[in-house]
């Protein structure tokens, strides 16, 4: 059972968005729902957004919708900032990171992360992902506003990437940042096609000079925090460390915590312009935890 006042989410067309919301709303005492949706997918998400609206209405939950945009990340950031800094009476916030782009996850968490607010996060696994593709048409990687750390001049860049199913995007990040060292954290396990789509494909980097592979488990209790910390420690003081998550969403929590612990590090987001309408199906288990 979870006590929560404010619930923050990003609308999606995926099954687990609405199914997950129904799960949450059944068990909790939400008073407010802040739902963001992307302009570029407004049509795809309209049905689910209406459904959430109806559910909130039935339960007397105050529901506000905010449009943000992939194209205009500055305005999107400001929208989120204005909404969150206005929260003075909220004691508990739950952030549903399931269908939330990592950049938004990090932005919201960093804005909300204060002493007087209790922050929890929720993640719903899907039943399965699409086998063919998940995202394509990569846009330029970018550092996250206000989470780009502190620069050390005259030292090389070290890039940490937690790999996901689109393994080729690793190369895109490497080409972009041109690091002297790349640390690739590969998700363990055979769940959800991980072996074929992630582990096998990541093997091609084993022999590449300047690349270090290691295993990580985003589904364990710390979402891989300790394992990642072990591998980045030698590089924190001697390089400009840039961290990016392409793997399970929960790994984004680990990276956020690392960034908080080592504020000189930078968080980077690798956007895609196209998301598969059949990205995932059904809903699996739910993770809930405090930040």
């Amino acid at each position, binding site marked *: 059972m979870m006590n929560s006042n404010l619930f923050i989410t990003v609308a999606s067309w995926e099954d687990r968005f609405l199914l997950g919301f129904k799960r949450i709303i059944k068990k909790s005492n939400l008073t407010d729902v802040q739902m963001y949706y992307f302009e570029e997918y407004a049509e795809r998400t309209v049905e689910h957004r209406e459904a959430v609206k109806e559910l909130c209405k039935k339960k007397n939950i105050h529901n506000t919708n905010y449009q943000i945009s992939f194209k205009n*990340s*500055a305005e999107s*950031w*400001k929208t989120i*900032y204005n909404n969150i*800094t206005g929260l003075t009476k909220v004691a508990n916030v739950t952030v549903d990171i399931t269908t939330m782009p990592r950049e938004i996850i990090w932005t919201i968490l*960093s*804005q909300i992360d204060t002493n007087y607010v209790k922050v929890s996060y929720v993640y719903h696994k899907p039943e399965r992902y699409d086998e063919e593709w998940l995202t*394509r*048409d*990569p*846009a*330029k990687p*970018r*550092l996250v*506003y*206000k*989470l*780009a*750390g*502190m*620069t*050390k*001049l*005259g030292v*090389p*860049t070290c890039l940490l990437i937690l790999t996901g199913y*689109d393994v*080729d*995007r690793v*190369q*895109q990040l490497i*080409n972009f*940042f*041109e690091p*002297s060292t790349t640390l690739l954290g590969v998700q363990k396990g055979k769940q959800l096609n991980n072996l074929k789509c992630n582990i096998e494909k990541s093997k091609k980097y084993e022999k590449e*000079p*300047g690349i270090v592979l290691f295993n990580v488990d985003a589904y364990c209790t710390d979402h891989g925090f300790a394992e990642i910390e072990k591998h980045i420690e030698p590089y924190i003081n001697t390089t*400009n460390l*840039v961290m990016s998550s392409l793997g399970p969403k929960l790994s984004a929590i680990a990276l956020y915590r690392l960034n908080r612990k080592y504020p000189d590090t*930078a968080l980077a987001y690798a956007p895609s*312009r*196209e998301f598969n309408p059949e990205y995932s199906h059904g809903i699996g288990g739910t993770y809930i935890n405090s930040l």
Partner: protein
Amino acid sequence: MDYNNPFEYASAFKLGADKIVDFYVPDYNYSRFIRSRRNIFLVGERGCGKSMTLLYNSVPIQQKKVEKESSKLKLDILCVHIPCNTPLMYRREYQLLNDFKASIISEHFLVLKIMFDIADSLSKIPNLTKGIDESELRKELGFLLPIKLPSRKPVLDGLAICCQKAINDAEKVINAKGPNVFYENALSFSSGVLSLLICLREIPKLADSHFALMLDDAQVLNKHQIKVLNSWIAYRDNSLFSFKIATTKVDRPPLHTASGGEIFEGHDFTSIDMEQPYQNRLSDFGKLARDIIRLRLKKTGISILKTPEEFFPVNPQFEKDMKKCEDSVRKEARKKFINGTQKQITDYVYKYARAKYFRDRSKRANLPPYSGFETLVHLSTGVIRNLLEPPYWMYDKIISEKRSKGEENPMIDEIPNSVQTEIILDRSEKKWAFINKGLDETIEKCSREQAKQLENLFENLAILFKTRLLKHKSEPRAISFTISETRFEHYPKLEKLLILAQKAMLLNTYTSSAKDLGKRETYYVPNRILWPIRGLDPVGQHARVSIKAVHLWAAASENKKIPFSKSENTEERGLFNDEQ
């Protein structure tokens, strides 16, 4: 990477100072401009040698070089390397501010970066401030920054530390949560860099020095930094400093200044295209390629006596067969041009001898045994990294094989032609795999549709060139093309595809004089590493196929074959018609 692999093709940053000194071969087409007072743009895609050129000329590397030669560093022109591809330049908080503030903070970061690199570079020159009162200099420099220079450190080291601190102070402010946070003590180019350079001239040894500020990967600068940089280029007094700016071709920054004006090529700066067409061994790139390989072989102790041609021998059967074809074609030519000139016969042999080799091969035969130094140079398509990459893997293969047989310190004095062929075909196959599996996964701004179109385009170009090789009457080996009749509805979409192909290093573009009125025209050379696995001749012919834009677009969008005619559509070029 194995230290002893002479063909390391890693980015220059990863090579280290010693290797940069050892491996660098100056290209006199442009190296003379690096150590000059001109503003220069060095333009070319990854792997063409921009960073290597800048790094070689930088103060620390030159200092290393003179130490090796036991000589002294000349201080007339001091080249400061300023790498822009750093997380500092990727910060985006300026986007949360209005344009004016965004411009100020952007310039501040760029200025501090430049100041740091100046201080850091000059600190590598021993005894630079010997004999002068450092405390006076420290005082003067301290006026530049709102921080006191540490008195216990040498003045330039201290300055570098202060620049670091100044950047972090600004970052602390802009990392604060609000969108409108602004750092008030921002420096501009004139209050920062210019003042610093004037101060440095107080050091007696630097009294007459000219500072060449070399910005590497300037395409990553944000729009405000680019405008500010262009403004400095437009207004510079080039006795004190000049800019050498390395950028990619495709994402080359615009030329607008902060005041809404422009900078002009030939006037404010000179542009140098680092990607060079390779026509033959006498061309500039041909000579450069030979020098690079020869130097690499020499410096790694492999072979002082062997030429690159001897180190990469041609398959003897291929040589024999090629000679047969040449003789046969020469006979043909003598019959055809009974009263002809020697030039007519030579030209005829040049055009048709190699084509005959490919035409006479049985359909069931294996792919040709691609080998030889000349072939490697052609395959590089004028890009240095492409020149080194196949030999790297060839060398690696032989070393691995020898080690697996128990040889501890294997020596190599040539790359067998069979290994050359194997690796060339392997690289060729990999290049096609890169095209076929989806460029949208790795190339920025490439959609799924465009990735498919590019796949179609290159497949159809391969088919066209193959058909020409086997059937064309006059220019069978042309493997580059120009685009005609560009006033066509979908031409902008085609142009975007071609830009993506350049980004993916699948296509090079050059300009040369068109036949009429001295106008310059663009011609396109697909990466020649694509051709071996398709059985094409990567050596090519100095002619271009003229393809209508509508046909290229149909090839890309509808996977339609590009029309082929046995005798038309080609423009023959003189051997040295191509210009930089």
